[in-house]
């Protein structure tokens, strides 16, 4: 399996993506913005198809559109009482725009399928370097952002009272989510980013009592699902994205049942 270069690149690329989706997914859940993460990938679809139509790399179009949408949601989000409505409308408008671009773009249907469902085996050396750069950039931003992000996620009112700009934090964070989404699309495709971005984080956040353990577990599960998905695809010849989403779903359900059982035992055991 590892003797083939495209397999080595696939493992490296998905590993890089898993390293950044872990912490970002964790904070998306902590901030109750999982839907925003999901929407940004869909918004990117219009950018990717538009870029393809113009003969530019779809990754660049995807990144620009997701970034713009992320910043926009960050700016107007706190003002809106019901964020989901705004996000949903932006999402559907972008998908509609993507469909229009697709209507004019009649060549290379395979490229669009890769965009929608991912094709990790098609990642080349150049894309691998782009992903590595994106990952380093995201970790660099998170190095500065984590403390105020955590404070504003857990105690927004107090954070604001201490002089933190909730809007600024929201804009930077959602911009970061857009970058990670663009990276994640390379592995899972636009339609299945939720599985790698939110699935592992959901297991971690429901099972860990501390933030660092939660983020670490989120990264580990993301790695397990990404690499497990590629390995299973190798042995079965089924799509990688299917396996990743299947693993994500199975691990979430199993952990959910396990945690519920453990909590039930803990609650029903006699107190000391």
């Amino acid at each position: 399996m590892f003797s083939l270069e495209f397999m080595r690149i696939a493992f490296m690329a998905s590993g890089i993506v898993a390293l950044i989706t872990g912490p970002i997914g964790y904070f998306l859940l902590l901030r109750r913005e999982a839907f925003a993460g999901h929407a940004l990938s869909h918004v990117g679809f219009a950018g990717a198809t538009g870029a393809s139509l113009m003969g530019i790399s779809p990754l660049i179009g995807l990144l620009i559109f997701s970034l713009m949408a992320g910043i926009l949601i960050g700016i107007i989000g706190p003002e809106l009482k019901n964020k989901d409505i705004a996000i949903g409308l932006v999402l559907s408008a972008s998908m509609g725009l993507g469909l229009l671009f697709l209507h004019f773009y009649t060549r290379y249907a395979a490229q669009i399928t890769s965009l929608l469902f991912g094709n990790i085996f098609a990642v080349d050396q150049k894309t691998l370097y782009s992903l590595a750069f994106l990952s380093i950039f995201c970790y660099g931003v998170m190095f500065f952002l984590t403390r105020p992000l955590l404070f504003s996620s857990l105690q927004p009112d107090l954070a604001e009272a201490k002089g933190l700009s909730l809007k600024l934090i929201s804009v930077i964070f959602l911009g970061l989510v857009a970058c990670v989404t663009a990276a994640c699309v390379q592995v899972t495709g636009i339609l299945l980013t939720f599985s790698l971005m939110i699935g592992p984080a959901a297991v971690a956040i429901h099972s860990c009592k501390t933030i660092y353990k939660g983020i670490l577990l989120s990264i580990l599960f993301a790695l397990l699902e990404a690499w497990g998905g590629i390995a299973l695809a190798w042995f079965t010849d089924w799509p990688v994205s299917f396996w990743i989403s299947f693993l994500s779903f199975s691990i979430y359900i199993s952990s959910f049942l396990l945690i519920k059982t453990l909590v039930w035992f803990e609650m029903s055991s006699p107190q000391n």
Partner: protein
Amino acid sequence: MNVIECHDLDIKRGSKLILSQLNLEIGKNQFIGIFGPNGSGKTTFIKTIMGIIPIHQGQLNVFGLSPSKARQFIGYIPQARDINTFRLTGRNFLSAGIRGYKFGLPFLNKQDSSRIDEALDQLQAKKLAEKPLEELSGGQRQRLLLAQALIENPKLIILDEPFSNLDPKWTLSILNSIKTIQRQRSLSVLLATHDLNPLLPIIDYVLCIGNKRAVLGTIDSIMTSSVLSDLYEFPLNVIRTKENLFVIPSF
């Protein structure tokens, strides 16, 4: 130096005038109950003191400084909001606030940890802090939030409706803790509430807010039928028993 000084202060929320021509002085080590019905402007006034809502007109000094500069001396407990903390422990929740407004990674040094321990000890909340926040009752959460407000050694503590959704037993327990802390640390306390009764034996003064106006004074001087009827521009009867106070409309 007074803790809070307002001179001809106007406060707006968006385009709506909430408080107009407010003049008051709050001295050191005082326990003030901020009283008013829901929507009267208690939270807006508190948010202005914290520098979240800008002053529209007039002057507001907190410890002789502008609100944004004085916030470092204030321990603030905002109105309860439903936040999903998943399995995070109370200690993790509290730790997130340590220098939380500065960019960087949320690591704690020894001094931070000992300050957290000291605040938790003072409220006998050390054991509570090790439990996931979602497993704690409203009263237990308030105890932790009170501990958090003490971590940075404030000179003033502001609590916005800390007793909403608390049963009388927890209300009394939290109130006693606040009073003890105030005495021990020589703090000033501002506590906003729509029910003044639990505070009656404790507070020094009451700040009554309503109808874009506010009046400050002792309970005996402010909580009277004539003052409240004048403030709310509606005939109100204030009935006092030995331990309770009832404000009822006079029809």
